[in-house]
């Protein structure tokens, strides 16, 4: 005879030791951010000034906005290297509109629509044709910026209307710039979408196992497509900001932003292999990168030397938890 044992009760969660919260990625980033902040305050007498701190945020807000969407994309197991090129193309289109006499609202609309369009183009290539995104976006990266070059050649667009300057140069209140406010609001929205909605849950699941997701009724391609569109959209928004901040457009605008945005995402603890990460981490990483570059800038350290710090920071922050864990497990020979 078969004895049927009573079903075992499975708890929802095990009580985690406090240490696991203390050693979380975000906690590590907070510690680093505070440390850099403290070092900066000591190293330069100019650092602790509201206007300095406000200027500091311009070092990361635009890239940070892109990084928010990029984080979702990377969590889902894809990547977009064409973001900076999208910024350039969107800016070029806005420039064309200015020549045709467009006002600020139209410009913003154009920036956003072009960004969305480019994102959708990437998304279509990746989801419809099943191509690897890293390769597709290496291609579109040249294509989008190439189109900007074809349109602009050696020219520049300028003459953006006064009212357009607000987006990249305006302040919402005292030292709080519009860019910073937008970044914080966007971060909140992205946090909510990724961590509190079923869409966000699906993004995580897709990054972990896209095939199983497809079998489970997750519309994998549709979600990936949306994520590419979002990344394009954020690039379009970043393009509005940067164009407004510079007050002009050249095809070489925003060069190298893609790697910086990805660095933010990875530094923020998003797994480049997909399936893991948090928006809080990305936001912290954006601030850290701003703190490092601005702090070193105050000491007149050349940008390239700063990049050594960023590179080291990236590797060390990622290596630290691994080394720490191994040390605890006594697995280091």
């Amino acid at each position, binding site marked *: 005879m078969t004895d049927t044992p009573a079903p075992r009760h499975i708890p929802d969660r095990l009580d985690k030791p406090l240490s696991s919260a203390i050693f979380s990625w975000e906690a590590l980033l907070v510690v680093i951010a505070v440390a850099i902040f403290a070092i900066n305050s000591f190293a330069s007498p*100019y650092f602790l000034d509201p206007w300095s701190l406000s200027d500091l945020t311009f070092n990361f807000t635009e890239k940070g906005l892109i990084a928010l969407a990029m984080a979702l994309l990377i969590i889902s197991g894809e990547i977009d290297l064409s973001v900076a090129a999208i910024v350039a193309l969107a800016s070029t289109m806005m420039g064309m509109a200015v020549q045709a006499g467009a006002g600020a609202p139209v410009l913003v609309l154009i920036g956003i629509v072009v960004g969305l369009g480019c994102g959708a183009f990437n998304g279509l290539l990746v989801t419809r044709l099943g191509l690897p995104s890293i390769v597709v976006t290496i291609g579109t990266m040249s294509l989008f910026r190439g189109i900007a070059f074809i349109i602009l050649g*050696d020219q520049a667009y300028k003459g953006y209307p006064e009212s357009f300057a607000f987006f990249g140069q305006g302040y919402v209140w005292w030292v709080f710039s519009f860019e910073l406010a937008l970044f914080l609001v966007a971060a909140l929205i992205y946090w909510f979408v990724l961590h509190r909605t079923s869409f966000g849950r699906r993004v995580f699941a897709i990054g972990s196992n896209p095939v199983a997701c497809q079998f489970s009724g997750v519309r994998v391609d549709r979600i990936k497509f949306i994520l590419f569109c979002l990344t394009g959209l954020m690039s379009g928004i970043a393009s509005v900001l940067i164009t407004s901040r510079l007050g002009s457009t050249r095809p070489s605008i*925003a060069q190298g932003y893609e790697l910086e945005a990805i660095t933010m995402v990875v530094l923020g603890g998003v797994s480049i292999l997909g399936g893991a990460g948090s928006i809080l981490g990305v936001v912290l990483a954006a601030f850290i990168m701003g703190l490092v570059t601005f702090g070193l800038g105050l000491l007149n350290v050349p*940008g390239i030397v700063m990049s050594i710090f960023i590179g080291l920071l990236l590797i060390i922050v990622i290596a630290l938890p691994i080394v720490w864990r191994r040390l605890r497990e006594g697995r280091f020979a």
Partner: protein
Amino acid sequence: AYAENVKIALVVKSLGNGFFDAANKGAEEAAKELGDVDVIYTGPTKATAEAQIEVINSLIAQKVNAIAVSANDADALVPVLKKAMDRGITVISWDSGVAKEGRQLHLNPSDTNLIGETIIKLAADYLPEGGDVAILSASSTATNQNAWIEAAKKVLPEKFPKIKLVATVYGDDDSAKSTDEAKGLLKSYPNLKAIIAPTTVGVVAAAQVVTDENLIGKVNVTGLALPSEFKKFIDNGASQAVALWNPIDLGYSAIYLAHDLAVKKEEAKPGATLSIGRVGKVTLDDTNSAAMAPPFQFDKTNIEKFSKIY
């Protein structure tokens, strides 16, 4: 004494460029002469406007007294430089200028039209029969290069009717791209007699290509070059002559002017004549621009001497 010193930032297009390093020498010289000046020599490593803006932002935060900038983009820097001026910082541009609203004055190394004419003349002098020439420029967005090329095109028909400008290409101040472009020119225009490169990176790349392809004597490379970097190609005959102004004097003048404006010794307004120490005097035109000195020509006779200086 520290607090009273005038802090002047010499912001260059990109660090590491020999031309700007030479300018910094002049800046230090001016600082010593003026006595109460601290020079901050800085700039991005990558010649982009965005990187330059970050540098300028940190200078604003440091509350420098003056910024003297050689711009990567004439327009993109305007908002941040305006911000600097709003916060009481004296802003001038030198070498590669900023649009009028973004600075108090601009110091051209030389007269734009004069440079445009000189780069053509350098080629024409060695082409008594006339012939095809091409221009290899830096990036398509470089303000000063574009202005010179414009000026060159203007003088061509009247002053050098036998010289035919067949193409203008861009090497982006990247030696690999400049090399590709120079090769392309030689292939596309077999009758090419001269390559004019008004950029120190491009001119070296073009001269190396001409050397490699055994075209010395057939194609003359000319343009703007630092004697120290270019001596080799004058020596081997790939180039007959190149021109440049004195970057040391340029750096010197930039600091001198920035200082005088910052301490309110002088005021920048159209028509004003400003003194720049040992270099002499300049007069501002109606866009508050001034030209320092005519370009100086280097050839076999003097390259040895100047290559030791800059």
